[in-house]
């Protein structure tokens, strides 16, 4: 009486048969079982046919020169230093620092915004007799040149 299950590939010896076919040592007498179990015999036949077909496929062998180059490439990839990668945020900080430095230099050289936004009085004078001239900035920052004249100087008849 067969110890198999009686149907194709359902025998409990199938996995043991495959290990035996691959060369592993098994505890049962597989060869004797195969002779008694048609299911395992058919499976063994399929395995053998598959092996024969695989062995018929031509193999591409790596020539020793190619192999050396191949290994050299792997070795180079393993031992080469990793490229330095600066994170994006670090570049952003560097750009911000450069901007701040540039602006500070500009500010220092130009003397700040007030240095050029304010009107600069370079000279002022008056030919009126007894007049004094002064330059000042009002509280609102309006640069002013003012002339102070004596009453006697205001002698044009048409202005009063």
């Amino acid at each position, binding site marked *: 009486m067969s110890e198999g299950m009686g149907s194709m590939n359902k025998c409990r010896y199938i996995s043991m048969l495959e290990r035996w076919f691959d060369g592993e040592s098994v505890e049962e007498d597989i060869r004797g079982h195969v002779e008694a179990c048609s299911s395992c015999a058919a499976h063994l036949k399929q395995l053998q046919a598959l092996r024969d077909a695989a062995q018929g496929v031509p193999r591409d062998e790596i020539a020793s020169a190619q192999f050396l180059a191949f290994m050299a490439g792997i070795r180079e990839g393993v031992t080469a230093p990793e490229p330095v990668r600066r994170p994006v945020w670090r570049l952003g900080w560097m750009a911000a620092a450069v901007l701040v430095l540039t602006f500070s230099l500009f500010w220092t050289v*130009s003397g700040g915004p007030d240095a*050029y*936004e*304010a*009107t*600069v*009085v*370079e*000279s*002022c*004078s*008056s*030919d*009126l007799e007894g*007049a004094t*001239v002064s*330059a000042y900035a*009002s*509280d*609102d920052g*309006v*640069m*002013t*040149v*003012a*002339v*102070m*004249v004596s009453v006697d100087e*205001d*002698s*044009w008849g*048409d*202005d*009063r």
Partner: protein
Amino acid sequence: MKAFCLAIVLVVSMGARDASPPPAVVNVVAVHATNENRSQRHVDPAVEKVRSSISDIAEFDTFRPITDETVSAPFAQNTRVVLTPKYALFITPLGTGPRGQVRFSIVVQQPPKAGQSEPVNAISTTVLMPPDKPFRLRGLRWQGGELVVIVTLRR
């Protein structure tokens, strides 16, 4: 070859001519400041745009417009703005600053007094003026009050 050199000289000279700065556009506002013993300060709506330039003038309570003129002043040329029958303003752009400023010679002149032939410079000043920043002349007596002149370089 001579024609080529001549062409280069012409192009360079035309470029140099075009490089001269365009006329400066200047707004001149003259305000008559008087004291009329008002309980409240009165600023005529016509001088509203220069209100901030006269807000600190405390010795007068009334401000009326006299002149509001925008002129195009070519460089190195006198441009005259008549303020009143007594005063005329002469503005002369002399050069430019590094950030859009213009150096002006500004002279407020009075006509010659009786018996004299030369006009009198009531105020003569040289200023380096940035755009859109009012510059003010004060102390010019006019009809019981004062003539306040606000000069602004336009962009």
